[in-house]
């Protein structure tokens, strides 16, 4: 674990894998819940957790470097199910990357349990991990200027669902009617870091 100071009151804690980042994030949330960590934002990402708005960053940095990272916590949270029609325009390209027939993409994707590693890009956009590394896919060579809301997409090791229409370079494999973000709802975000997710196949229109 490497602790990097960020400005006056933030720390970026770097670990060596996504699983370690997940374990560190869970441990930091636990400390905040028990009242031993005072911080404005805890932002997990691919290999790091950012702690922003700390009262005493130097003391926490010293503490963290002396701590053993606890193991990944048990998967206590319930699974969010997202219905998907596997009708995306990049389904054939993804099948080619994976070296499987097109219909196999849906099977592999729906048999995987995902976890929200972190959020970013847009409110409610989660970076979901769970697919084995052999299913990593590159981004599109040319990003689309408008990806429709509800598009289920792949890039690198991640699956994501576009909460609203936006430009994007991910490979689109399907569509969902699930509402990823609704600020009138509590909570506004369907997915937050740590959420377990399964995609459930839905018949085409």
């Amino acid at each position, binding site marked *: 674990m490497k602790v*990097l100071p960020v400005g006056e009151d933030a720390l970026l804690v770097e670990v060596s894998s996504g699983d370690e980042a997940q374990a560190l994030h869970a441990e930091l949330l636990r400390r905040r819940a028990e009242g031993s960590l005072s911080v404005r934002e805890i932002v997990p990402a691919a290999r790091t957790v950012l702690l922003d708005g700390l009262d005493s960053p130097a003391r926490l940095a010293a503490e963290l470097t002396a701590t053993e990272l606890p193991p990944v916590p048990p998967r206590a949270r319930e699974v969010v199910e997202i219905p998907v029609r596997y009708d995306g325009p990049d389904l054939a390209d993804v099948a080619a990357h994976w070296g499987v027939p097109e219909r196999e993409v849906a099977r592999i994707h729906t048999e995987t349990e995902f976890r929200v590693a972190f959020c970013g890009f847009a409110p*409610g956009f989660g970076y979901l991990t769970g697919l084995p590394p052999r299913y990593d896919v590159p981004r599109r060579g040319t990003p689309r200027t408008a990806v429709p809301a509800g598009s289920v997409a792949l890039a690198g090791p991640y699956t994501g669902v576009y909460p609203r229409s936006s430009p994007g370079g991910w490979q689109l494999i399907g569509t969902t009617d699930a509402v990823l973000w609704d600020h009138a709802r509590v909570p506004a975000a369907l997915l937050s870091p740590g959420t377990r997710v399964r995609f459930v196949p839905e018949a085409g229109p």
Partner: protein
Amino acid sequence: MTDRALVVVRSGALTTVQDRGRPGHAHLGVPRSGALDGPAADLVNRLAGNPSGTAVLETTLNGCAVRPRSAVTVAVAGAPCRVTVDGRPVAWGAPVRVPAGALLDVGPAVSGVRAYVGVSGGIAVEPVLGSRSTDLLSGLGPPPLTDGTVLPLGRPTGVHARVDVAPQPAPPAELVLRVTLGPRDGWFTPEAIRAFLSGTYRVSAASNRIGLRTEGPALERAQAGELPSEGMVLGAVQVPPDGRPVVFLADHPTTGGYPVIAVVRAADLPAAAQAVPGTPVRFVAVRRLRVC
């Protein structure tokens, strides 16, 4: 009370509703947002008799004009500008009574970029995640003002202004930004770090509420490749592939993959919000936090 409202007559280049934003939701991909020049927003609220953190208007370069449907106390500060009520000049940086139906015109910035308009009672649009701020990156909060927009106003709290006029810093002729290096200064060559701390940059016209873009010496990386996405803080100086530093302002993305060479002190960011395109920028290193 339905007559407690402002009718937007001239929305200007970009006028938004701003308060202190919505910090605390970065883990969901929600930017903090909020007034770029926080001290100016606080000042107009004090002058208008509002509690601090009340929603105000933030204009960009050429001001705006609004017509209150009932009499209100307003105050304009931030970027210096000509302020008129029904064509008659009134004070800038001081409380002004505007009668019902009169036209308050906030003129173009004489210097600086962003003027703040505080109105007694505050702008009372529906809050989103506890804030009324317009977030231009993610689209949360009310859209930027357009001509004809009607903005509801809150009830005045009856708090009297504690100051009549208040001195304010002039917009900077040169923008000096104190930075602490890191967390990713190791991604740059020693020459690039020297160039960053000794070169003169200029504020680019492509700057906005998301970031202050600069023009100047391109910073060369010591290592190629991509950094996995990581959390970003306010004031982070991110260096995209073109090598020109971008200082993250209130609407910045919550995660990013370009290396952050340094972080600007929060106290220097209000001045960054008032630096017009072309303003010289210097980054000055201050000691970073020591961690073992």
